[in-house]
């Protein structure tokens, strides 16, 4: 076995061990579910997701949310199934190397009505770094009343100009303040977005983006 193959095997084993460790952590949280029937259903769903290569952490969080909200076992099962489906779709759109955070954020974005193509465009715009924050801000903007297409265009434009995470979250917070003051969400987004754009350098000519400045 060549040195390169040994290294590749070690990476695979380490990755597998990390995933198994995360799954084990989620299984240990099953004890927080007191109802036996619900716990068994959740355990089964986590096992199925794990075997399909879907991260279990967001699913466990969804189950605990359902328990906290006193949802029935059926509703918890349906919610977990729906989330797993969205995460698998997000994985298709964001690539196999997408992180757990990205998949969960992508699933959230899909749940509020963001177009699937947007996820693919965002990945294309930033293929070498996490876009979980951008997806989170996009979801937040839609949740605040901005139309999914309008919010998507703005986030993509800002990504194209290498906007920082702080700038993106500030945009969302500013829109929130404007909406609370009575402004139309999309008008608020346009105004605030222009404000941030004016602070950013011109878009790079290259197809791919530079690493986001700290």
């Amino acid at each position: 076995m060549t040195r390169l193959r040994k290294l590749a095997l070690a990476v695979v084993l380490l990755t597998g061990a990390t995933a198994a460790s995360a799954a084990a952590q989620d299984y240990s949280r099953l004890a927080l579910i007191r109802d036996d029937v619900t716990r068994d259903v959740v355990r089964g769903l986590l096992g199925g997701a794990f075997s399909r290569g879907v991260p279990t952490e967001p699913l466990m969080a969804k189950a605990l949310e359902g328990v906290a909200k006193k949802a029935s076992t059926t509703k918890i099962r349906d919610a977990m199934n729906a989330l797993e489906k969205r995460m698998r779709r997000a994985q298709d759109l964001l690539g196999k190397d997408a992180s757990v955070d990205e998949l969960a954020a992508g699933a959230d974005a899909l749940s509020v009505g963001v177009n699937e193509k947007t996820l693919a465009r965002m990945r294309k715009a930033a293929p070498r770094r996490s876009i979980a924050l951008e997806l989170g801000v996009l979801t937040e903007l839609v949740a605040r009343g901005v139309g999914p297409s309008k919010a998507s265009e703005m986030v993509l434009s800002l990504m194209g100009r290498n906007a920082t995470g702080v700038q993106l979250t500030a945009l969302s917070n500013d829109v929130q303040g404007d909406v609370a003051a009575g402004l139309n969400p999309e008008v608020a987004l346009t105004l605030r977005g222009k404000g941030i754009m004016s602070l950013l350098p011109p878009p790079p000519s290259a197809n791919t983006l530079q690493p986001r400045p700290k």
Partner: protein
Amino acid sequence: MIPRKFACGCVVAVIALSPARSQSVHELRVEGGTAQIRQDGRTARNAGLVSALARAGDDHFAGLVSGAFTYAGDSMTAGQAIAALAWRPSMQSAWQTEGGVTGAAFGIYQLGRGGNVSSYLRQRLALPEGGFWVGGAAGHTTRDEISSHSTAVDVGLSVRLGDFETSFSWARVRSDDIKLLEAAGVFLLRDAPAHDFDDRTIALQYQRARVKLDVSKTWREGQRATLANQSALFASAEYTFTQRFSAVVAAGRQLADAVRGVPDVQVVSAALRMVLVPWRGLDEEGAGVIAYASVTPGAEGALLIVKVAAGESQRVQVAGTFSGWEPVPLKRTSEGWEARIVLGSGRYRLGVRVDEGPWRAPANLGKVRDEFGGTSGIIVVP
């Protein structure tokens, strides 16, 4: 006759002054009840009382106005109004400045011979674990066309442990309201222009779920030419039936308050409290919960501050993906209910609930359907 008039003012103070210590966002409530008032050497008297209180606030200011009216069968009546304002430099600041004015009329129906105006200013440090304050007050009382003046300075500190909060305070009072104080058993040993005395108070509050209990003990000691050696124990209990209705019962002795012209009396009272606003909360499901969340970015992660306007006797919790949806209790502050949670970078969902009710998204956050029939608020920390 004068002590009779004083008695009515006392009951008004019991009902109306207690909420002035706290401000929350947009509330209007009314109270109605009955009381039995007794002074040393006099027959106990029955009285009816009604009051209304409104308060509103934002990130920097909180205001309160209230009015109360007391009626006894032989036309002994009293009216009182309070206006108070609190200010803080920022939403995250634990420091706040409070000030207010109170006005009262004694015997306004028939006897019509007295009134009081007082004001106060206080600087307060309000932390989730307790606080500290220093302040001063001044009052002017006119009774039977004789004017008197009183001043007071006070300092105090409070400590909160779980469901208990205890406070210790000291006040130095100077007053030339001779009639009021002599009726209360406070005398001058020699010729002097005014009474001087110290009040030391220890108060204990217990609050859990629908029940709130308050007990306070005050010791009064004369200074300089004043002879006073008194103590008073006062207790009250509030039970919240629903978000709309609660009942308050109180009993004990209240020492004369020269600054506000209130006499020394023993009181037993019972009142029903009804919250008119918020009739519906800002939340779309109309849960009656007004919650706000703010995120202040820091060097690493951010500080999430959740504030909820809910009754003092209610139990308020926040939960979210940051806690694995384990409920985190909010703590009672001078401004309502509050939780401060340090978050790392990431995306979070959260909700708040009152008295084990449904989880709701804070009003100012973006909301997403939670697939369980409700909503969650979402935040993103860079």
